[in-house]
């Protein structure tokens, strides 16, 4: 069947974050793993319900901050001591207290930029098109609706059984989302 091969997943709609969390718990008990929840705002503890415990973002920020800080300190030391040494009143060439400010600023700058671009990269953004956008109801995800999508690639995914399971959750709505309209 052609439509089946293009099926992205089943999208369930909930009215609030509590029923969404309950839906996730049941789906996890059922053994589904390839799923994600979609909410208008960050719901506390939702990622843990989905079994997501790790975010690479802190490590990315740390990497950026270290690159900025060490790179900044090195750049100043290299230029002041090796590349362009000037003797000013007999002061030491490696006058490190003067280098603190720029080292600090570059630490923050690189940490922040790495974090921002890293977060987008980890999330796979920008991604202007996504199969979920084919479902008109999904527009409400940025307003007041909470969604759970069980993806068709989940090994436990079965067209009839999964649909029936999701119907039993008594959601506000249940939609099959296709990759192409």
């Amino acid at each position, binding site marked *: 069947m052609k439509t089946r091969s293009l099926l992205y997943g089943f999208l369930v709609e909930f009215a609030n*974050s509590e029923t969404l969390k309950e839906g996730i718990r049941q789906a996890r008990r059922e053994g589904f793993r390839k799923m*994600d*929840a*979609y*909410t*208008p*705002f*960050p*719901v*506390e503890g*939702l*990622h843990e319900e*989905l079994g*997501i415990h790790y*975010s690479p*973002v*802190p490590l990315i*920020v740390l990497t950026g*901050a270290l690159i900025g800080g060490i790179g900044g300190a090195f*750049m*100043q030391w290299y*230029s*002041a001591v090796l*590349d*362009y040494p000037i003797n*000013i009143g007999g002061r030491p060439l490696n*006058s490190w207290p*003067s*280098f603190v*400010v*720029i080292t*600090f*600023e*570059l630490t*923050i*700058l690189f*940490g*922040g*930029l790495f*974090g*921002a671009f*890293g*977060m*987008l990269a*980890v*999330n796979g*953004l*920008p*991604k*202007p*098109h*996504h199969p*979920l956008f084919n479902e008109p109801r*999904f*527009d*409400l*995800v*940025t*307003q*007041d609706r909470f969604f759970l999508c069980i993806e068709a690639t989940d090994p436990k995914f079965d067209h009839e059984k999964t649909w029936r399971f999701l119907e039993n959750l008594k959601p506000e709505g249940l939609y099959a989302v296709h990759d192409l309209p």
Partner: protein
Amino acid sequence: MREETPETVYTPPIIGPGHNYRTLTEKISGIVLDRKAPIEWFLLFGVGFIGSVTLLFALIYLLARGVGIWGINIPVGWGFDIVNFVWWIGIGHAGTLISAILLLLHQAWRQSINRFAEAMTLFAVTCAGIFPMFHMGRPWFFYWLLPYPNTMGLWPQWRSPLVWDVFAVSTYLTISLVFWYIGLIPDLAAFRDRARNRYARAIYGIMSMGWRGAARHWHNYETLYVLLAGLATPLVLSVHTVVSFDFTVSIIPGWHSTMFPPYFVAGAIYSGFAMVLTLAIPLRKLYHLEDLITMRHIQNMAKLMLATGLIVGYSYIIEAFMAWYSANPLERYVMINRAAGPYHWLYWALILCNLVIPQALWSRRVRNNVVAIFFIALVVNVGMWLERFIIIVVSLSRDFLPSSWGMYYPTIWDWATFGGTIGLFIMLFFIFIRVLPMISIFEMKQIIDKPEVSIE
């Protein structure tokens, strides 16, 4: 004095009654997407536009004739340009304080004011940047300040506070922009989903980068948001510290002081809150946002303004004390010159604006009166500008040798540039509230999702 009834100690809520997710989205995005701009918007935008054109004209004339058209000369080589630079940079600080420090302190009331306060920061830093850039005289060589491989084989002078300032201010602008934009992404997605106009939908769609509110994404997003707040907090404290280094590292009497960094940071936050209040009070009236920017916000900001104002007042007193206690005749003369010299009336106006009038905020009655708070905020804005004028110009005009003293008078071009940046600020701000969500929609929803967070 009437007796205190329970009614007078009532603390207003941080969000008006009867709001749910949908009404919040509709109210905030409706300002941009559904409703026509009110006539006041056009008037204020027009004022800003005229100011911006004035600025453009003043700067073009400056490039044609050189900085001689300004009032600066020897001994006062830093006039309006640096005064306005420090003033604008300081104003930006409240935006970062609200968005970063209050986030780390879990102050839920920040959520409805952080967005436009951050926008204010960006525009204020933009206005600030214009001054040192054009004060250089040959602004097209500004990149000489940056470390880049060049055929001259030169490097920036790392030991100069002016170079530190370049790094501090440009980092501040970049991180503020990143923080603001990251915060905007989910709200831009909400705009994309609500916009009926095809082009608006496409533009907001591109700007929101395809945000779809996935739990995985929110997890990384929130982690980053807190980390950015953690990075922005020391950054904002460092920016005005580094600005104060421009003065303290020199030997001019009145500048060479270890007190400057905290004194400047407190003053920056003081003037910043004054500017946030100056913007928030008319905005909530104009767009009927009294249920989102409540009296609680106004009162909290008024209290913060009072608190930072007291630190600033304390600094004025310590400055005078240290001048006497140092037993240094030059330092002592700085104080005498401020209070009784040719610019004495500015000094007393400063004391009136920054030290005396804001004390009215101790009164609960004043803190319940929006018009009074607005007036005090305006006074503080003026006062903080006077403070920078006195620190910079009065110290420079009479330094060591009476033979090298001289007065500074701003010219019409100084005023045009200063007024022009105010116009640019107003114009940018009104463009912002016309095309972007001026209140963070998703963060407001978080407040009503967690009733256990004290809204009262």
